[in-house]
Structure formats: structure tokens, C-alpha cells
């Protein structure tokens, strides 16, 4: 539970638009993903990466995590993207088309080379791979273990439905199995699971429903294409006061249980044992990241002592 960085909301910002780039400090999201890939026309790839480099060099007092979505490693632009932006020290790279662990490993090697060249500790640059093709979904479990740099797996529903030759719907039935594969891969590797964008910026109701659904499934964050979507996403991910109160009661109850020499106790007629405590600890850690409580839950609270 050490790395409990909130990544509820990851906003895409087009890399070739100064008017959007220079608003990055003002957006209330947890992270931005400056886009050199789909948001930049082929004729502007060179100019966009220069713009992003110069922007990041000037953005010194950073107040959120900065990822740069480079072009796919199978394109002729990817290496120039890395060369241009890494010296300006983004926190990490959003890697499109992470169809296999080998692709992530290749980026890992490149990042190590840049870290050595720039005099940074190895592992400074993080990676968030996009699982956005049928092949990527099939390999998600292996991809999640491909590098120590991974902060999570990100599901890309737009590209995924395109490769599946299907339409994306607002209710998302067509995405269930893919989302679960991404989730299993991420959870088994102990990293975060980040959901896809929701494309209709005028339909806030469906955005809320989709965010509630993916939170229920286990995703801890969602990508966005418009800052107007931030509030709803944060609202859905914020722990409810009742959940927090209940979690605090659970922790108290299990402490009482251990004093009595047992690992299980009843709270308001419900059985409390280790898995319930683990979930409560998770709620409290999230609540702490939201500034709702200041208790620190450690391993001893969860597992007791020998």
C-alpha cells in the first residue's frame, strides 16, 4: 500500500495547441497526458514535440503528474518524440499500442538509456501502456509484468472497438471481457487499472454511469478528453462518508477481535475477517488521499502481529 498516488482523472491535452498546454497548471485533474499521437496531424509531428519540450521546460512548479503520449514504437516518430521530450522531464510515457510485453520492454530499455544520458536514477521515467487491441487484451497479464516502471495498465476502448470491428456503445456491454482482462492483469501485478475515455462531452449522465460501472469493476481511474469531465469522475471516485465511517468501525472491530485472541468478529450482524479489513484499509487509504481522514493504515492494522 506504499505507492498510493491518486490517479482518478487523466486528462488528454493535444500537444500542438498552446492554448490548451498552458492551461495544464489550472486543470484540477490528477494527471495530464500530453498527446503527440492521435491529436497531432502527421504534418505537425515535428512542431508538436518541440512545443511540448519548450512548454515542459517552462513549467517548473508542477502540480500534477505529467505523462506524454508518444507515437507508437512501430512508427517513425517515436524515437524523435522521446529524444525531444525526455530532457524536459515528464513523469512518464503513455505508450500506445502496447500489444505485447516485448513492446514495453523495448521502451523500458530506451528510457534507461536516456536516464543514463541525463544523469537520472534508473526508473525515473514511468510507463503507462495502452491496452487497446485484441492482441493487447490477450497479453495484458504478461504486459503488466513487463517492467518495474509500470504505474498501471490503461484500457483504450476507442482503438479496441476499432480493432474488433465493432461499435462502442454508451452502456459498454461489448467491453466487459476486455475490461476484465485488463483488470486481472493489473491487479495480479499490483498496479493500477485506468479506464478509457468517454467521448461524448455533452452526455454527463452517461459519463457518470460509465464511471460508476468501471469503479465497481475495480478501475481506480479514468482518462478524459475534456476538463469538464473532471468533476464527475472525482465525485464518483471519492469515498462516500458512510463508507469511510464503516471502514473506521471495521478497523476498530478487528483490533478488538485480536485483543480477544480471534481473527474474526461480528459488527452489526456482519462477519468481519481479513478480506473485509483489507477492503476497509483500501477505503481509508483512498479517503486519506482525498483528505477526508488522517489515519494511516499499516500492515499491522490489516494483519495483526505474530
Amino acid at each position, binding site marked *: 500500500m506504499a505507492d498510493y498516488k491518486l490517479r482518478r482523472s487523466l486528462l488528454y491535452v493535444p500537444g*500542438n*495547441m*498552446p*492554448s490548451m498546454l*498552458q492551461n495544464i497548471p489550472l486543470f484540477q485533474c490528477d494527471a495530464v497526458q500530453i498527446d503527440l499521437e492521435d491529436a497531432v496531424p502527421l504534418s505537425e509531428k*515535428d*512542431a508538436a514535440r*518541440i*512545443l511540448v*519540450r*519548450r*512548454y515542459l*521546460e*517552462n513549467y517548473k512548479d508542477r502540480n500534477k503528474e505529467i505523462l506524454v503520449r508518444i507515437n507508437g514504437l512501430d512508427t517513425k516518430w517515436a524515437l524523435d518524440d522521446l529524444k525531444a521530450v525526455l530532457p524536459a522531464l515528464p513523469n512518464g510515457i503513455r505508450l500506445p499500442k502496447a500489444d505485447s510485453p516485448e513492446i514495453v520492454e523495448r521502451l523500458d530499455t530506451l528510457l534507461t538509456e536516456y536516464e543514463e544520458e541525463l544523469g537520472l536514477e534508473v526508473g525515473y521515467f514511468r510507463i503507462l501502456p495502452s491496452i487497446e487491441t485484441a492482441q493487447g487484451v490477450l497479453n495484458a497479464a504478461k504486459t503488466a509484468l513487463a517492467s518495474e516502471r509500470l504505474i498501471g495498465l490503461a484500457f483504450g476502448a476507442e482503438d479496441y472497438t476499432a480493432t474488433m470491428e465493432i461499435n462502442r456503445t454508451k452502456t459498454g456491454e461489448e467491453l466487459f471481457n476486455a475490461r476484465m482482462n485488463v483488470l486481472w492483469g493489473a491487479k495480479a501485478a499490483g498496479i493500477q487499472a485506468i479506464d478509457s475515455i468517454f467521448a461524448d462531452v455533452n452526455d454527463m449522465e452517461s459519463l457518470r454511469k460509465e464511471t460508476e460501472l468501471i469503479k465497481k469493476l475495480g478501475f481506480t481511474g479514468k482518462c478524459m478528453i475534456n476538463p469538464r469531465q473532471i468533476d464527475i469522475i472525482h465525485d464518483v471516485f471519492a469515498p462516500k462518508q458512510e463508507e469511510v465511517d464503516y471502514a473506521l468501525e471495521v478497523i476498530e472491530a478487528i483490533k478488538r477481535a485480536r485483543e480477544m485472541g480471534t481473527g474474526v468478529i461480528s459488527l452489526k450482524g456482519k462477519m468481519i475477517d481479513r478480506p473485509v479489513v483489507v477492503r476497509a484499509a483500501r477505503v481509508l487509504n483512498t479517503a486519506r488521499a482525498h483528505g477526508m481522514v488522517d489515519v494511516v493504515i499499516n500492515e499491522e492494522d490489516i494483519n495483526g502481529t505474530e
Partner: protein
Amino acid sequence: MKILKKGQAGTMQSSDLMVVVEPAEDLIVEIESTVKKQFEHLIRAKIDEVLAKFDTKSGRISINDRGALDYAIEARLEAALQRAGGK
């Protein structure tokens, strides 16, 4: 960088600028800006600084500024110079 051919970069969107560089015998910098009255001297200073950094000593540099900040001025001029063949 030496300007070998015409190079253009940027857009006419707000907070951006359009830069056109062309070969010329002397160094000529022309600035049009939505905020010309207040900021022409600062834009010119930034352009001069970037030209000096890239060791560009001659050429016609035309700027059409839409209220860009320094980083964007630097980036667009740099992109235009690169496209003008000056590696």
C-alpha cells in the same frame, strides 16, 4: 541554423503564432501581433534570443502573433528554422 529554403510553423489560433522564415541576405524580423503595442519589444527580444541560440545570422523572419507566450514563440521559430533546412 542556416535558412536554406522557406520554412513555416505554427497556427493562427489564440495563444499561438505563425512563423515564416525565408532565405535573405540580411537579417530582417517583421512582427505582426494582436498585442503589438504592448509587447512588440518583448517578442522581438525573444526572437533575437532564439536566433542567436541557433546561430542564425541572415534571413527574413515574419511573425504573426496571436498572443503567444515565450515558450511558444521559441518553439514555433525553432520548428520553422528546422523546416527551413537548417539542421
